[in-house]
Protein backbone atom coordinates (compact mmCIF):
# COMPACT_ATOMS: atom_id res chain seq x y z
CA UNK A 1 0.00 0.00 0.00
CA UNK A 2 1.33 3.46 -0.85
CA UNK A 3 0.96 6.71 1.08
CA UNK A 4 -2.06 7.78 -0.93
CA UNK A 5 -3.74 4.44 -0.34
CA UNK A 6 -3.10 4.69 3.38
CA UNK A 7 -4.33 8.26 3.56
CA UNK A 8 -7.55 7.50 1.73
CA UNK A 9 -8.33 4.23 3.50
CA UNK A 10 -11.67 4.87 5.30
CA UNK A 11 -10.51 2.60 8.15
CA UNK A 12 -7.90 5.22 9.02
CA UNK A 13 -10.44 7.99 9.34
CA UNK A 14 -12.74 6.82 12.11
CA UNK A 15 -12.59 5.29 15.56
CA UNK A 16 -9.83 5.27 18.17
CA UNK A 17 -6.35 5.25 16.64
CA UNK A 18 -7.57 6.91 13.45
CA UNK A 19 -5.96 9.97 11.86
CA UNK A 20 -8.49 12.49 13.30
CA UNK A 21 -8.24 10.87 16.74
CA UNK A 22 -4.43 11.01 16.83
CA UNK A 23 -4.37 14.53 15.38
CA UNK A 24 -6.80 15.55 18.12
CA UNK A 25 -4.68 13.92 20.83
CA UNK A 26 -1.58 15.57 19.41
CA UNK A 27 -3.22 18.98 19.54
CA UNK A 28 -4.70 18.32 23.00
CA UNK A 29 -1.35 17.39 24.58
CA UNK A 30 0.31 20.32 22.81
CA UNK A 31 -2.33 22.76 24.04
CA UNK A 32 -2.09 21.55 27.66
CA UNK A 33 1.70 21.85 27.61
CA UNK A 34 1.55 25.29 25.98
CA UNK A 35 -0.94 26.61 28.53
CA UNK A 36 1.02 25.32 31.52
CA UNK A 37 4.25 26.73 30.06
CA UNK A 38 2.59 30.11 29.41
CA UNK A 39 1.22 30.29 32.97
CA UNK A 40 4.78 29.85 34.26
CA UNK A 41 6.75 31.76 31.62
CA UNK A 42 4.65 34.87 30.98
CA UNK A 43 4.63 36.29 34.56
CA UNK A 44 8.29 35.37 34.98
CA UNK A 45 9.14 37.02 31.66
CA UNK A 46 7.19 40.13 32.66
CA UNK A 47 9.11 40.31 35.93
CA UNK A 48 12.50 39.86 34.24
CA UNK A 49 11.64 42.27 31.45
CA UNK A 50 10.30 44.92 33.80
CA UNK A 51 13.05 44.77 36.40
CA UNK A 52 15.94 43.72 34.18
CA UNK A 53 16.94 41.15 36.77
CA UNK A 54 17.93 37.64 35.79
CA UNK A 55 18.47 38.13 32.06
CA UNK A 56 21.45 35.81 32.18
CA UNK A 57 19.09 33.15 33.54
CA UNK A 58 17.08 33.39 30.34
CA UNK A 59 20.02 33.13 28.00
CA UNK A 60 21.34 30.24 30.04
CA UNK A 61 18.08 28.31 30.02
CA UNK A 62 17.46 28.95 26.33
CA UNK A 63 20.90 27.69 25.36
CA UNK A 64 20.91 24.74 27.71
CA UNK A 65 17.50 23.55 26.55
CA UNK A 66 18.57 23.81 22.96
CA UNK A 67 21.61 21.64 23.55
CA UNK A 68 19.78 19.04 25.62
CA UNK A 69 18.51 16.25 23.35
CA UNK A 70 14.77 16.01 23.96
CA UNK A 71 14.66 12.30 23.18
CA UNK A 72 17.16 11.53 25.95
CA UNK A 73 15.43 13.80 28.43
CA UNK A 74 12.08 12.21 27.67
CA UNK A 75 13.30 8.64 28.06
CA UNK A 76 15.18 9.49 31.23
CA UNK A 77 12.08 11.03 32.82
CA UNK A 78 9.86 8.15 31.76
CA UNK A 79 12.22 5.61 33.32
CA UNK A 80 12.41 7.67 36.50
CA UNK A 81 8.71 8.52 36.87
CA UNK A 82 7.10 5.39 35.41
CA UNK A 83 7.48 3.29 38.60
CA UNK A 84 5.48 5.92 40.51
CA UNK A 85 2.35 5.63 38.34
CA UNK A 86 0.73 2.39 37.35
CA UNK A 87 -1.57 3.57 34.59
CA UNK A 88 -1.13 5.51 31.37
CA UNK A 89 0.03 8.41 33.51
CA UNK A 90 3.41 6.67 33.63
CA UNK A 91 4.25 8.11 30.20
CA UNK A 92 1.73 10.93 29.91
CA UNK A 93 3.08 12.85 32.90
CA UNK A 94 6.80 12.67 31.97
CA UNK A 95 5.95 13.57 28.36
CA UNK A 96 3.97 16.61 29.48
CA UNK A 97 6.77 17.66 31.83
CA UNK A 98 9.30 17.56 28.98
CA UNK A 99 6.96 19.45 26.66
CA UNK A 100 6.41 22.17 29.28
CA UNK A 101 10.14 22.41 30.04
CA UNK A 102 10.89 22.89 26.34
CA UNK A 103 8.19 25.50 25.86
CA UNK A 104 9.16 27.73 28.79
CA UNK A 105 12.47 29.21 27.48
CA UNK A 106 11.13 30.52 24.14
CA UNK A 107 8.06 32.15 25.75
CA UNK A 108 10.14 33.52 28.62
CA UNK A 109 12.72 35.09 26.34
CA UNK A 110 10.02 36.38 23.98
CA UNK A 111 8.19 38.25 26.74
CA UNK A 112 11.32 39.49 28.51
CA UNK A 113 13.24 40.62 25.43
CA UNK A 114 10.05 42.16 24.03
CA UNK A 115 9.80 44.34 27.14
CA UNK A 116 13.54 45.08 27.23
CA UNK A 117 13.47 46.19 23.59
CA UNK A 118 11.01 49.01 24.30
CA UNK A 119 12.52 52.45 23.92
CA UNK A 120 13.11 53.69 27.50
CA UNK A 121 11.81 57.15 26.61
CA UNK A 122 8.38 55.65 25.92
CA UNK A 123 8.23 54.29 29.45
CA UNK A 124 9.59 57.51 30.91
CA UNK A 125 6.94 59.45 29.03
CA UNK A 126 4.23 57.19 30.46
CA UNK A 127 5.60 57.66 33.94
CA UNK A 128 5.70 61.42 33.37
CA UNK A 129 2.03 61.32 32.38
CA UNK A 130 1.28 59.79 35.76
CA UNK A 131 0.94 56.09 34.83
CA UNK A 132 1.30 53.75 37.78
CA UNK A 133 3.67 50.79 37.56
CA UNK A 134 0.73 48.44 36.95
CA UNK A 135 -0.53 50.68 34.17
CA UNK A 136 2.92 50.84 32.60
CA UNK A 137 3.17 47.05 32.65
CA UNK A 138 -0.31 46.39 31.24
CA UNK A 139 -0.86 49.36 28.95
CA UNK A 140 2.65 49.99 27.63
CA UNK A 141 5.00 47.08 28.15
CA UNK A 142 2.74 44.13 27.37
CA UNK A 143 1.21 45.58 24.16
CA UNK A 144 4.62 46.70 22.92
CA UNK A 145 6.16 43.33 23.76
CA UNK A 146 3.32 41.51 22.04
CA UNK A 147 5.02 40.81 18.67
CA UNK A 148 8.04 39.17 20.33
CA UNK A 149 5.79 37.38 22.84
CA UNK A 150 3.83 35.99 19.93
CA UNK A 151 6.98 34.79 18.18
CA UNK A 152 8.06 33.19 21.45
CA UNK A 153 4.75 31.33 21.69
CA UNK A 154 5.11 30.38 18.05
CA UNK A 155 8.57 28.94 18.71
CA UNK A 156 7.26 27.10 21.74
CA UNK A 157 4.37 25.63 19.76
CA UNK A 158 6.71 24.47 17.04
CA UNK A 159 8.91 22.80 19.61
CA UNK A 160 6.00 21.17 21.44
CA UNK A 161 4.31 19.80 18.32
CA UNK A 162 7.62 18.41 17.16
CA UNK A 163 8.57 16.83 20.48
CA UNK A 164 5.09 15.41 21.06
CA UNK A 165 5.79 13.33 17.97
CA UNK A 166 8.84 11.74 19.54
CA UNK A 167 6.86 11.08 22.71
CA UNK A 168 5.06 8.38 20.71
CA UNK A 169 8.25 6.39 21.22
CA UNK A 170 7.38 6.17 24.92
CA UNK A 171 3.76 5.26 24.03
CA UNK A 172 2.11 8.68 24.05
CA UNK A 173 -0.84 9.04 21.67
CA UNK A 174 -0.57 11.54 18.84
CA UNK A 175 0.47 11.59 15.21
CA UNK A 176 3.85 10.16 16.13
CA UNK A 177 2.04 6.84 16.76
CA UNK A 178 1.80 6.20 13.01
CA UNK A 179 5.54 6.80 12.62
CA UNK A 180 6.55 4.56 15.52
CA UNK A 181 3.96 1.83 14.87
CA UNK A 182 4.63 1.92 11.15
CA UNK A 183 8.34 1.57 11.84
CA UNK A 184 7.72 -1.40 14.13
CA UNK A 185 5.53 -3.10 11.53
CA UNK A 186 7.81 -2.12 8.64
CA UNK A 187 4.83 -0.36 7.08
CA UNK A 188 6.34 2.56 5.19
CA UNK A 189 2.95 3.76 3.93
CA UNK A 190 1.72 4.25 7.49
CA UNK A 191 4.95 5.99 8.57
CA UNK A 192 4.99 8.34 5.61
CA UNK A 193 1.25 8.97 5.78
CA UNK A 194 1.52 9.90 9.45
CA UNK A 195 4.57 12.05 8.74
CA UNK A 196 2.72 13.86 5.97
CA UNK A 197 -0.31 14.61 8.15
CA UNK A 198 2.05 15.82 10.87
CA UNK A 199 3.99 18.06 8.50
CA UNK A 200 0.76 19.58 7.16
CA UNK A 201 -0.49 20.18 10.71
CA UNK A 202 2.77 21.90 11.69
CA UNK A 203 2.80 24.12 8.61
CA UNK A 204 -0.87 25.04 9.14
CA UNK A 205 -0.13 26.02 12.76
CA UNK A 206 2.79 28.16 11.60
CA UNK A 207 0.68 29.88 8.95
CA UNK A 208 -2.04 30.36 11.56
CA UNK A 209 0.41 32.14 13.84
CA UNK A 210 1.64 34.31 10.96
CA UNK A 211 -1.97 35.27 10.17
CA UNK A 212 -2.72 35.91 13.83
CA UNK A 213 0.31 38.19 14.08
CA UNK A 214 -0.86 40.24 11.08
CA UNK A 215 -4.37 40.41 12.48
CA UNK A 216 -3.84 41.47 16.08
CA UNK A 217 -0.47 43.17 16.36
CA UNK A 218 -1.03 46.89 16.87
CA UNK A 219 -0.45 48.74 13.56
CA UNK A 220 1.81 51.15 15.42
CA UNK A 221 4.22 48.29 16.03
CA UNK A 222 4.43 46.82 12.54
CA UNK A 223 7.51 48.09 10.82
CA UNK A 224 6.28 49.51 7.57
CA UNK A 225 9.20 51.92 7.48
CA UNK A 226 12.72 50.60 7.11
CA UNK A 227 14.41 50.31 10.47
CA UNK A 228 18.05 50.71 11.26
CA UNK A 229 19.72 47.51 10.04
CA UNK A 230 21.51 46.98 13.35
CA UNK A 231 18.18 47.03 15.18
CA UNK A 232 16.82 44.62 12.60
CA UNK A 233 19.65 42.15 13.19
CA UNK A 234 19.07 42.31 16.91
CA UNK A 235 15.44 41.52 16.33
CA UNK A 236 16.29 38.65 13.98
CA UNK A 237 18.66 37.25 16.53
CA UNK A 238 16.02 37.45 19.23
CA UNK A 239 13.62 35.67 16.93
CA UNK A 240 16.14 32.96 16.18
CA UNK A 241 17.07 32.60 19.82
CA UNK A 242 13.41 32.01 20.60
CA UNK A 243 13.14 28.98 18.34
CA UNK A 244 14.51 25.80 19.67
CA UNK A 245 14.04 22.76 17.58
CA UNK A 246 13.31 19.08 18.01
Amino acid sequence: MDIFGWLTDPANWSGPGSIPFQAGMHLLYSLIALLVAAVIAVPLGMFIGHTGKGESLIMGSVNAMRALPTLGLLILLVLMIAPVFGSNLAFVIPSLIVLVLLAIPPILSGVASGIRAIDRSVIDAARGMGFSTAQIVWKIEMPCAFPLTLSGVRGATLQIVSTATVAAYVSLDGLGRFIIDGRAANDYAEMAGGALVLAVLAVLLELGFAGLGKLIVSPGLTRRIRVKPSAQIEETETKIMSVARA
Partner: protein
Amino acid sequence: MRLDWIINNAGEIWDLTLSHLWLTLLPTLIGLILSIPLGYLAFTYRRSYTFIVGGTSLFYTIPSLALFILLPKVMGTKILDPINIVVALVIYTIALLVRLVADGLDSVSPDVVKAAQGIGFTRLQTFFKIQLPISVPAILSGLRVVVVSNISIVTMAAVIGVAQLGSLFTMGFTRRLFVPIVVGLIVCLLLALILDRLLVLLGKVLTPWSQKGAL
Protein backbone atom coordinates in the same frame (compact mmCIF):
# COMPACT_ATOMS: atom_id res chain seq x y z
CA MET B 1 24.02 2.56 38.38
CA ARG B 2 26.57 0.33 36.77
CA LEU B 3 29.46 2.48 35.73
CA ASP B 4 31.46 -0.47 34.41
CA TRP B 5 28.98 -0.38 31.53
CA ILE B 6 30.81 2.71 30.28
CA ILE B 7 34.19 0.98 30.30
CA ASN B 8 32.87 -2.17 28.65
CA ASN B 9 31.21 -0.15 25.91
CA ALA B 10 33.76 2.64 25.49
CA GLY B 11 34.50 1.55 21.93
CA GLU B 12 30.87 1.67 20.91
CA ILE B 13 30.30 5.03 22.60
CA TRP B 14 33.28 6.42 20.69
CA ASP B 15 31.95 5.11 17.36
CA LEU B 16 28.51 6.58 18.05
CA THR B 17 30.11 9.91 18.99
CA LEU B 18 32.06 9.99 15.73
CA SER B 19 29.02 9.26 13.58
CA HIS B 20 27.09 11.84 15.59
CA LEU B 21 29.75 14.48 14.90
CA TRP B 22 29.79 13.54 11.23
CA LEU B 23 25.98 13.72 10.98
CA THR B 24 26.04 17.16 12.65
CA LEU B 25 28.99 18.87 10.98
CA LEU B 26 28.51 17.77 7.38
CA PRO B 27 24.99 19.21 7.01
CA THR B 28 25.94 22.35 8.95
CA LEU B 29 28.80 22.99 6.54
CA ILE B 30 26.74 22.27 3.41
CA GLY B 31 23.92 24.41 4.80
CA LEU B 32 26.30 27.31 5.47
CA ILE B 33 27.77 27.13 1.97
CA LEU B 34 24.31 27.14 0.40
CA SER B 35 22.98 29.87 2.70
CA ILE B 36 25.52 32.46 1.61
CA PRO B 37 24.46 32.74 -2.06
CA LEU B 38 20.78 32.39 -1.08
CA GLY B 39 21.15 35.10 1.54
CA TYR B 40 22.95 37.29 -1.01
CA LEU B 41 20.06 36.84 -3.44
CA ALA B 42 17.53 37.75 -0.73
CA PHE B 43 19.61 40.81 0.17
CA THR B 44 20.24 42.00 -3.39
CA TYR B 45 16.72 41.53 -4.71
CA ARG B 46 14.50 42.81 -1.92
CA ARG B 47 11.42 41.40 -3.61
CA SER B 48 12.79 37.87 -3.28
CA TYR B 49 13.49 38.36 0.46
CA THR B 50 10.03 37.36 1.69
CA PHE B 51 9.91 34.47 -0.74
CA ILE B 52 13.35 33.06 0.12
CA VAL B 53 13.35 33.70 3.87
CA GLY B 54 9.67 32.89 4.36
CA GLY B 55 9.81 29.82 2.15
CA THR B 56 12.85 28.30 3.81
CA SER B 57 11.61 29.03 7.33
CA LEU B 58 8.37 27.21 6.54
CA PHE B 59 10.44 24.03 6.12
CA TYR B 60 11.76 24.65 9.61
CA THR B 61 8.30 24.06 11.06
CA ILE B 62 8.18 20.48 9.81
CA PRO B 63 9.04 18.16 12.72
CA SER B 64 12.37 16.42 12.19
CA LEU B 65 10.92 12.93 12.50
CA ALA B 66 8.42 13.67 9.73
CA LEU B 67 11.16 15.07 7.51
CA PHE B 68 13.42 12.05 8.09
CA ILE B 69 10.61 9.82 6.86
CA LEU B 70 9.28 11.92 3.99
CA LEU B 71 12.68 12.65 2.42
CA PRO B 72 13.34 9.04 1.31
CA LYS B 73 10.08 9.22 -0.68
CA VAL B 74 11.17 12.47 -2.34
CA MET B 75 14.77 11.44 -3.00
CA GLY B 76 14.24 7.73 -3.59
CA THR B 77 16.69 6.74 -0.87
CA LYS B 78 16.31 3.97 1.67
CA ILE B 79 14.67 4.87 4.98
CA LEU B 80 17.76 3.96 7.00
CA ASP B 81 20.16 5.84 4.74
CA PRO B 82 21.99 8.51 6.83
CA ILE B 83 21.78 10.79 3.77
CA ASN B 84 18.15 11.52 4.78
CA ILE B 85 19.33 12.90 8.10
CA VAL B 86 22.00 14.99 6.38
CA VAL B 87 19.56 16.49 3.88
CA ALA B 88 16.97 17.22 6.60
CA LEU B 89 19.58 19.06 8.67
CA VAL B 90 20.82 20.97 5.60
CA ILE B 91 17.25 22.19 5.16
CA TYR B 92 16.99 23.29 8.80
CA THR B 93 20.40 24.96 8.66
CA ILE B 94 19.47 26.95 5.55
CA ALA B 95 16.13 27.91 7.12
CA LEU B 96 17.92 29.57 10.04
CA LEU B 97 20.98 30.96 8.30
CA VAL B 98 19.55 32.54 5.14
CA ARG B 99 17.76 35.20 7.17
CA LEU B 100 20.89 36.01 9.15
CA VAL B 101 23.11 36.16 6.05
CA ALA B 102 20.64 38.50 4.33
CA ASP B 103 20.25 40.74 7.38
CA GLY B 104 23.99 40.63 8.05
CA LEU B 105 24.75 41.83 4.52
CA ASP B 106 22.06 44.46 4.95
CA SER B 107 23.79 45.79 8.05
CA VAL B 108 26.94 46.67 6.08
CA SER B 109 26.93 50.42 5.67
CA PRO B 110 26.25 51.41 2.02
CA ASP B 111 29.01 54.03 2.37
CA VAL B 112 31.56 51.29 2.94
CA VAL B 113 30.34 49.42 -0.13
CA LYS B 114 30.44 52.59 -2.24
CA ALA B 115 33.93 53.38 -0.99
CA ALA B 116 35.07 49.90 -2.01
CA GLN B 117 33.57 50.34 -5.46
CA GLY B 118 35.14 53.79 -5.62
CA ILE B 119 38.62 52.39 -5.19
CA GLY B 120 37.95 49.93 -7.98
CA PHE B 121 36.72 46.76 -6.26
CA THR B 122 34.67 44.49 -8.50
CA ARG B 123 31.34 43.19 -7.18
CA LEU B 124 32.97 39.87 -6.36
CA GLN B 125 35.81 41.57 -4.48
CA THR B 126 33.38 43.82 -2.64
CA PHE B 127 31.41 40.80 -1.56
CA PHE B 128 34.30 38.61 -0.40
CA LYS B 129 36.54 41.34 1.01
CA ILE B 130 34.03 43.79 2.46
CA GLN B 131 30.45 42.59 2.81
CA LEU B 132 31.02 39.00 3.87
CA PRO B 133 33.73 39.72 6.50
CA ILE B 134 31.63 42.47 8.07
CA SER B 135 28.66 40.08 8.22
CA VAL B 136 30.70 37.38 9.95
CA PRO B 137 29.51 38.16 13.51
CA ALA B 138 25.84 37.98 12.48
CA ILE B 139 26.32 34.76 10.50
CA LEU B 140 28.40 33.21 13.26
CA SER B 141 25.81 33.92 15.94
CA GLY B 142 23.32 32.02 13.79
CA LEU B 143 25.80 29.24 13.16
CA ARG B 144 26.26 28.73 16.90
CA VAL B 145 22.52 28.22 17.32
CA VAL B 146 22.44 25.90 14.31
CA VAL B 147 25.30 23.66 15.46
CA VAL B 148 23.96 23.25 18.97
CA SER B 149 20.41 22.51 17.86
CA ASN B 150 21.60 20.17 15.09
CA ILE B 151 23.38 18.05 17.69
CA SER B 152 20.10 17.67 19.50
CA ILE B 153 18.05 16.99 16.34
CA VAL B 154 20.40 14.25 15.15
CA THR B 155 19.50 12.15 18.21
CA MET B 156 15.89 11.91 16.92
CA ALA B 157 17.10 9.68 14.11
CA ALA B 158 17.62 6.91 16.67
CA VAL B 159 13.85 6.42 16.73
CA ILE B 160 13.88 5.24 13.12
CA GLY B 161 17.14 3.36 13.63
CA VAL B 162 20.04 5.44 12.31
CA ALA B 163 22.98 4.90 14.67
CA GLN B 164 24.45 7.87 16.58
CA LEU B 165 24.45 9.02 20.21
CA GLY B 166 20.65 8.93 20.26
CA SER B 167 20.92 5.15 19.95
CA LEU B 168 22.12 5.17 23.56
CA PHE B 169 18.73 6.62 24.58
CA THR B 170 16.65 4.05 22.74
CA MET B 171 18.91 1.25 23.94
CA GLY B 172 18.59 2.48 27.53
CA PHE B 173 14.83 2.55 27.10
CA THR B 174 14.45 -0.99 25.76
CA ARG B 175 16.82 -2.45 28.36
CA ARG B 176 15.65 -0.18 31.20
CA LEU B 177 19.21 1.07 31.80
CA PHE B 178 19.95 4.57 33.10
CA VAL B 179 23.67 4.64 32.42
CA PRO B 180 23.56 4.72 28.59
CA ILE B 181 20.93 7.49 28.66
CA VAL B 182 22.93 9.65 31.04
CA VAL B 183 26.13 9.01 29.07
CA GLY B 184 24.35 9.98 25.85
CA LEU B 185 23.01 13.20 27.38
CA ILE B 186 26.40 14.18 28.79
CA VAL B 187 28.32 13.46 25.59
CA CYS B 188 25.76 15.46 23.58
CA LEU B 189 26.05 18.42 25.95
CA LEU B 190 29.86 18.22 25.83
CA LEU B 191 29.86 18.14 22.04
CA ALA B 192 27.56 21.17 21.97
CA LEU B 193 29.75 23.04 24.42
CA ILE B 194 33.00 22.25 22.60
CA LEU B 195 31.68 23.11 19.12
CA ASP B 196 30.14 26.32 20.45
CA ARG B 197 33.46 27.40 22.00
CA LEU B 198 35.29 26.51 18.77
CA LEU B 199 32.93 28.73 16.79
CA VAL B 200 33.51 31.61 19.21
CA LEU B 201 37.25 31.14 18.69
CA LEU B 202 36.77 31.01 14.94
CA GLY B 203 34.87 34.28 15.19
CA LYS B 204 37.78 35.92 16.96
CA VAL B 205 40.18 34.70 14.29
CA LEU B 206 37.94 35.84 11.44
CA THR B 207 37.21 39.28 12.88
CA PRO B 208 40.49 40.46 14.40
CA TRP B 209 39.16 44.04 14.39
CA SER B 210 36.46 43.29 16.96
CA GLN B 211 38.60 41.95 19.77
CA LYS B 212 36.47 43.79 22.31
CA GLY B 213 33.28 42.55 20.60
CA ALA B 214 30.54 40.68 22.41
CA LEU B 215 31.20 37.43 20.56
